[in-house]
């Protein structure tokens, strides 16, 4: 009875370590969180009570929509701005801007996010901040709901445009020069060549880079938490901050995990877009 493993059995065997890790660090917390969303459960009190969909109903009848709006505003702002800046710089570098500038532009990206946030916290401080000092104003950049979100987006843009620039520059450098030369011979100007040659060639990589940045920003936490903590008056409270506050400041695990569940559903939609785009 000297049986040999089939290919399928062998494949499963190879997957055991990965599956074990998956169970321990992804499946368990995920299931745990999803289950908790159906309970009234405190971080500090023992015991819990099953409440069905009550946590979800509470959220959908209250905090969910403003948090969704803030998350979308932040995500769009913090994705579009670095995309545009990164694209422009990538084009400039590809067109012959000195190569050492690439290193300079990468600088913000290598600084840890929390450090970047503290740096900008100092710049935006209403009472002794650099920005007010330079402008001679007394604007409460982080204390006013109309400017707080802009300040947060500016900070995140500064931190993430280099990544966008590198991705797009890599895409530009794979573009055959002959395409541009042929278009030039045909009389196309710079703008026409950009529209008809560069943009179509870059569509796939630009789309992926944009979508990845969008997904990351949808989950982003540290910049917002350090700069505003979600304030003032909830004006910059995104899903990440709201879940953290509900769970770890309010000690309300039931509502926090329910909000996390809704947030995850939205992320799954984005992931589906990403996977479709990558497979296309």
């Amino acid at each position: 009875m000297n049986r040999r493993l089939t290919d399928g059995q062998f494949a499963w065997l190879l997957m055991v370590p990965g599956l074990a890790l998956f169970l321990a660090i992804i499946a368990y917390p995920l299931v745990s969180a999803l289950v908790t969303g159906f309970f009234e459960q405190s971080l500090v009190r023992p015991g819990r009570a099953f409440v069905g969909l009550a946590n979800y109903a509470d959220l959908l009848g209250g905090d969910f929509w403003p948090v969704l709006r803030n998350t979308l505003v932040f995500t769009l702002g913090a994705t579009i701005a670095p995309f545009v800046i990164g694209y422009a710089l990538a084009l400039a570098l590809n067109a012959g801007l000195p190569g050492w500038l690439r290193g300079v532009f990468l600088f913000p990206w290598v600084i840890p996010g929390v450090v970047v946030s503290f740096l900008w916290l100092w710049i935006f401080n209403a009472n002794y901040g650099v920005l007010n000092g330079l402008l001679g104003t007394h604007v409460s950049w982080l204390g006013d709901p109309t400017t707080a979100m802009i300040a947060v987006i500016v900070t995140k843009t500064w931190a993430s445009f280099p990544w966008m620039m590198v991705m797009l520059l890599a895409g530009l450098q794979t573009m055959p020069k002959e395409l541009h030369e042929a278009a030039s011979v045909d009389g196309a100007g710079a703008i026409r060549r950009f529209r008809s040659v560069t943009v179509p060639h870059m569509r796939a990589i630009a789309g992926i880079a944009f979508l990845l940045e969008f997904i990351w920003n949808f989950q982003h936490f540290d910049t917002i938490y350090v700069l505003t903590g979600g304030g003032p008056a909830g004006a910059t409270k995104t899903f990440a901050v709201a879940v953290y506050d509900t769970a770890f400041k309010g000690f309300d695990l039931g509502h926090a995990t329910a909000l996390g569940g809704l947030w995850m559903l939205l992320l799954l939609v984005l992931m589906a877009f990403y996977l479709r785009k990558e497979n296309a």
Partner: protein
Amino acid sequence: METLNRRAAFRLAGLSALGAALAACAPDAAGGGAPKGDAAARTFGFTSWSLNEEAQKAAVQAIVDAYAAKGGVKIDTASFPYNEYLNQVTLKLRGGQLSGAVQLDISWLAALAAMGRLKDLGAQAAKGGYTDVALSSGRFQGRQLGLPWTTGSIGLVANTEILKKAGVEGMPATVEEFEDALRKVAKLGGGITPYAAATKAAQLKDILPWMRTFGSPLLEGDTITVGDDASVAAVEWYKKLYDAKLIAPDVDRFDARALFAQGKAAFYDDAIITRGVVAAQSPDKSLTGKMAPLARPVLKAGDTPQALLWGHVIVVVEGEGSDAAADFASYATSDTATVAAFFEKVKLPPTTTAGLADPKVAGDTFTTEWTEKITKTATPNPFWRYAGYAQIETAIAEQVQAVLVGQSSAKDALAKAAETAKPLQK
């Protein structure tokens, strides 16, 4: 065909195992459990936010080192910034990652006590010689869960030099006089914030004593009175100061201390620790001599000035090293030479009768003045009795911030705060 069936069975078995594993590790909400570790162990942890603060770090470390040398124990220290401290300590305690002695703000005791893992320190309390008020700050539901390290109050402190320059004579005693003083200071210009009051949500709980000043009890029995006429009037007054730039936007305790230390604020709220903190931060080495505590102005003459009772306790987590940790807590808080030396370095008043009578403490004018003007009438925050008190304060703070930035009226905001806070009274 046979291979396919076996593969299907294999998958099925795998999925079943996965399901069983997930079910088995579905969240357990007990959050409690028996104490872990050897209570008699000679190694224990000491978690303290003071070890993270420049002004106190060395003084606290000196106590730790002295006890470790004296008792032949090893103390593993850990620290988190004050604003993140409760959160971190709660998570660690829940996850069984916290042991030994833990410094706590007195307002956090209920939240930690609710987790059921703190050691009863009644025996240590009985022999410590603590004052009754101090002991009460470490008591929860009849059990002595914390030994008081310092007991004081949060009140107003003034820069007398700025007041003199502004032509403010004497300390303002009523809200009207206070506002008048702020307006005079504002006329000085030069980037001076008349009153560096908290305007960031993280510290806007500082408005609660002002609500009391205007006549709101905050809590009557178990009924939250935030939203009554008095609290609304207090918030409208605060908003008036904000709009008139008599208080500054974007300020929390740390910003306020920085402004005050730079000579850029005439008044701000802090605990008695203010002197040590300001001395450590200020380029003006004579600033501490210009600081003066003042009773919070009252609405009308004859009212009782409002102040918030404040202090630190040391609690001990049941389990690994808890016996030695309890002895350390007792040493740090009641050994007279230790508490007097600690006072000398950081100006935090001790909690024992002997400590208070020590010449180093009793002869300190600023401390006696603070005790007389502020601590004497200080009362605890009534929400501290609830484990969810921080959430209640946050609900109020966020709504007050909404008023300050013009997103809501005081009446609507406080009604909403009370509605949010009601289910949190557990």
